[in-house]
């Protein structure tokens, strides 16, 4: 992870760490904080705690997003401190709705310069974001909304399993990860398990991200905590609730970073420090019916 972040996340880069609630790679964000990256433009539908941490740690210059809350537990206070008070630095916001962000990444992945959608009429969002434009259909004359392609420098995608070439398989919620990876110049795949190519090949329809677009593969078990990995460990909902208190208080926030980020060398030490708490989150078995690929 150390090396992947060093090589593919540089000061000033545009990055996207995707995963909608599911498979959010906190291990990568912590490494970015540890390496004290600066002036990043960070893109995500839901900044979630992961970008709250990046923002509070001073890594971020600009946020491109569609919903900035702590899901089920209130606001993101580090983000609000930056926006409302410029602490630790003021950040620029570029704001869409979910569908707008999905459309931007889809256009980026398809190397289309824009994506059309039936949206935003009557909303104030286009008024505050000049990148939401309109386009007339050449067949019906209808006016549709259009958003520009988003092509980040680097995408970081956490997968349940990948082979050493980065062919990555994800199940459960798949969000917008495929589009984010194809849209980006580089993709870092982080995986709970590195498996042999034959496991990937046993179920090719599960492959969400092909190795050919992957720049680095990192093995990082438990790399999503406090987010979750279906089939591996549950979401740490208690931590999400506790984060409300931590992020609300600048001192508690900084102490959290000291203890859980700067004070640790890597995710391995994080897991060690978590200790027995991890067992509480481990997934029970609920296996799918296998299917036959023979002919």
């Amino acid at each position, binding site marked *: 992870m150390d090396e992947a972040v060093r090589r593919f996340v540089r000061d000033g880069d545009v990055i996207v760490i995707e995963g*909608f*609630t*599911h498979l959010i790679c906190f291990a990568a964000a912590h490494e970015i904080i540890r390496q004290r990256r600066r002036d990043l433009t960070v893109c995500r*539908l*839901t900044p979630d705690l992961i970008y709250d941490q990046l923002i509070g740690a001073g890594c971020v210059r600009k946020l491109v*997003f*569609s*919903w*900035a*809350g702590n*899901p*089920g537990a209130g*606001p993101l206070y580090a*983000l*609000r401190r930056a*926006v*409302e008070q410029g602490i630790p630095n003021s950040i620029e916001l570029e*704001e*869409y*709705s*979910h*569908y707008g962000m*999905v*459309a931007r990444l*889809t256009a980026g992945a398809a190397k289309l310069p824009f994506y059309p*959608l*039936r*949206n*935003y*009429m*009557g*909303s*104030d*969002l286009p008024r*505050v974001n000049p990148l939401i434009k309109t386009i007339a259909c050449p067949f019906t004359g*209808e*006016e549709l909304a259009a958003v520009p392609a988003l092509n980040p420098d680097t995408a970081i995608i956490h997968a349940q399993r990948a082979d050493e070439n980065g062919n990555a398989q994800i*199940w*459960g*919620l*798949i*969000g*917008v990860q*495929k*589009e984010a990876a194809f849209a980006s110049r580089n993709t870092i795949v982080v995986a709970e398990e590195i498996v042999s190519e034959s496991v990937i090949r046993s179920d090719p329809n599960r492959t969400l991200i092909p190795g050919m677009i992957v720049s680095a593969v990192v093995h990082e078990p438990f790399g999503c905590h406090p987010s*979750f990995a*279906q089939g591996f460990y*549950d*979401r740490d*909902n208690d931590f*999400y609730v506790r984060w409300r208190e931590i992020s609300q208080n600048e001192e508690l926030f900084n102490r959290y970073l000291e203890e859980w980020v700067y004070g640790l060398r890597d995710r391995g030490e994080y897991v060690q420090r978590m200790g027995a708490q991890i067992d509480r989150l481990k997934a029970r078995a*609920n296996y799918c019916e296998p299917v036959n690929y023979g002919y």
Partner: protein
Amino acid sequence: MATDGPQFSPQELMVCQAARQLRDGEVVFVGIGLPNLACNLARRLYAPKLVLIYESGAVGADPQRLPISIGDPSLVTNSLGVFSMFDVFSFYLQGGLIDVGFLQGVQIDRFGNLNTTVIGDYQQPKVRLPGSGGACEIAILAKRVFVIAPQSKRSFPERVDFITSPGFIDGPDSRRRLGMPGGGPVMVITNLGCYEFSDGEMLLTSLHPGCTVEQVRENTGWDIRISPQLTTTELPTSEELRIIRGSHGLHGF
């Protein structure tokens, strides 16, 4: 709330009221919290074939615990299908398959416009709120929209500070004029009463037991219209309450 029947909280009443609006076989784009409870209640009592879709991609979820977030793993396990967000927004929502969308708002105005973006000026906000998420497109594209919101003078201004998710914008004809595919808001359920829309404007149609028109006026930022057929909201039945309080509970709401 104090009535002759079983005791219940305002939230429980709101959940029951929302559940009764759902018709069997409908497809509902559902958020967490009260809408989730309403849908589960409706599935148990009124609309067994209701299909729940979460913007996270889970379709036909059958959660075995109360989902805390819209992307809870319990929404995936044993669901009927999991789709990408591209599919959810393009094919389900924009594709016109969503009968009902549930929305919440920090502010809602007389035309049913919702604000979840900022209090105050956008560039110099007094309070920065989370933003749209999927709400803007749900408001525009779902066939019918239900809003569940606590009511106060601050949350019911005449005009929201920012239209995140358009209702009827500024009058009955606005949606049609702008070519919005969905039908817009049909009901707002608060802790005081239920509101429907007439000529694109909110209209008090039922008061919750124990609540008064005066209370409603005190907690509304404009001269609210009152239906000539104003009724009292039906009470939760014991069966409804039993289910709401059942396996999932109503902790934290």
